[in-house]
């Protein structure tokens, strides 16, 4: 029996583990893919108080090592379901805890158009910092309008010959500061009110079709970087946990789910601001509340 089982080893889950381990609780963290969460894709973190500039992966690596050094157990297993009695069923076994913290985060949203899945790694990418270097002096496009898309454009503009930034609206949700930096770049062309409707290519991406005000335009590119946001991964909990129509976990106070002893932290929950700062804040609060209520 564990004191706390945490589902997800991103910043929220690992921070919860850090707090719980420092309170001498027996903690188990499940991670289906790799630890670190979405922040591992961030070229630079520049909005975390006290850290002027650090790569996302360095932040994740430090946090992971900090948690491992405290003796937290991390199992790379996929959680298939949980129940009200705090049983956690994975692809390998069933585990029991006094409390559960759901910190499942979110996955990259896909465009869901033809050829997208087929051409991943052949000119379709969801990680500019991973794949940008393979497109030195080539032409690429980034689709999206948030911070990730803008950061990706800025990063890629120093590597490739040209970047198209494609956004479906007439203004950006992402940082104005980053947008100003982008506007200074000669090799970036912004296409507003535009959507990617088609990906052309057999063995690799050759071009994409952009729809702008009902007019189609084909542009030749070598890679399309998709940065259109994230979607939650809470579907496996829906029989037990109250989830909103978009798949995020509902909470009344930002930490409690509808089930006693099951808490939520990070991007998995319905909240206003999904950032590294709020993820670690959620993780620390969830662990503290879980411990307090466990000891009642």
């Amino acid at each position, binding site marked *: 029996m564990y004191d706390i089982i945490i589902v997800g080893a991103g910043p929220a889950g690992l921070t919860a583990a850090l707090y719980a381990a420092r309170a001498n609780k027996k903690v188990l963290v499940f991670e*289906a*893919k*790799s*630890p*670190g969460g979405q922040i*591992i*894709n*961030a070229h630079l973190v520049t909005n975390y108080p006290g850290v002027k500039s650090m*790569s*996302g*992966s360095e932040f*994740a*690596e430090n946090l*992971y090592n900090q948690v491992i050094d405290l003796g937290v157990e*991390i199992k*790379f*297993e*996929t959680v298939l379901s949980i129940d009200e009695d705090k049983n956690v069923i994975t*692809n*390998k076994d069933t585990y029991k805890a006094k409390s559960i913290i759901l910190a499942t985060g979110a996955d990259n949203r896909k465009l869901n158009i033809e050829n997208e899945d087929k051409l*991943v*790694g*052949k*000119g379709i*990418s*969801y*990680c500019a*910092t*991973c*794949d940008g*270097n*393979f*497109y030195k002096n080539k032409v690429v496009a980034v689709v999206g309008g948030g911070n990730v898309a803008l950061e990706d454009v800025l990063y890629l503009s120093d590597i490739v010959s040209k970047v198209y930034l494609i956004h479906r609206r007439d203004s950006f949700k992402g940082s104005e500061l980053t947008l100003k930096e982008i506007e200074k770049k000669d090799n970036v062309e912004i296409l507003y009110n535009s959507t990617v409707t088609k990906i052309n290519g057999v063995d*690799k991406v050759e071009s994409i079709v952009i729809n702008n005000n009902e007019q189609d335009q084909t542009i030749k590119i070598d*890679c399309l970087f998709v940065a259109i946001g994230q979607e939650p991964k809470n579907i496996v909990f829906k029989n037990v946990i109250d989830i909103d129509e978009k798949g995020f976990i509902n909470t009344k106070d930002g930490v409690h789910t509808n089930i006693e002893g099951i808490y939520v932290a990070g991007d998995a929950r319905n909240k206003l601001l999904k950032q590294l700062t709020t993820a670690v804040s959620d993780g620390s609060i969830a662990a503290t509340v879980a411990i307090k209520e466990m000891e009642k």
Partner: protein
Amino acid sequence: MVKEIKDTEYKSIIKDNKKVVIDCYANWCGPCKMLAPVVDALSEELKDIVFCKVNVDEAEVITGEYEIMSIPTLLIFEDGILKEKVVGLKSKSELEEIIK
């Protein structure tokens, strides 16, 4: 254990071993770094399979031969022939299924 190999070594490794997994990574790739503990765990469990990793910045032959344009990529060889090319992060259970 995951052994770091050089571009020049991989041909003999895939020839001399029944099954080989090569993790193609780079130091500038965050997801690659964070995939490392998962690949380590797989190598501990699947002892009859040889696990290697190669830095794509120093491996023009492998990246050219297998057209690696996205990392992390896992190359899975059986009897010297490429059986699967796994691009991006996958769950450990998915990787187990693919590799076994």
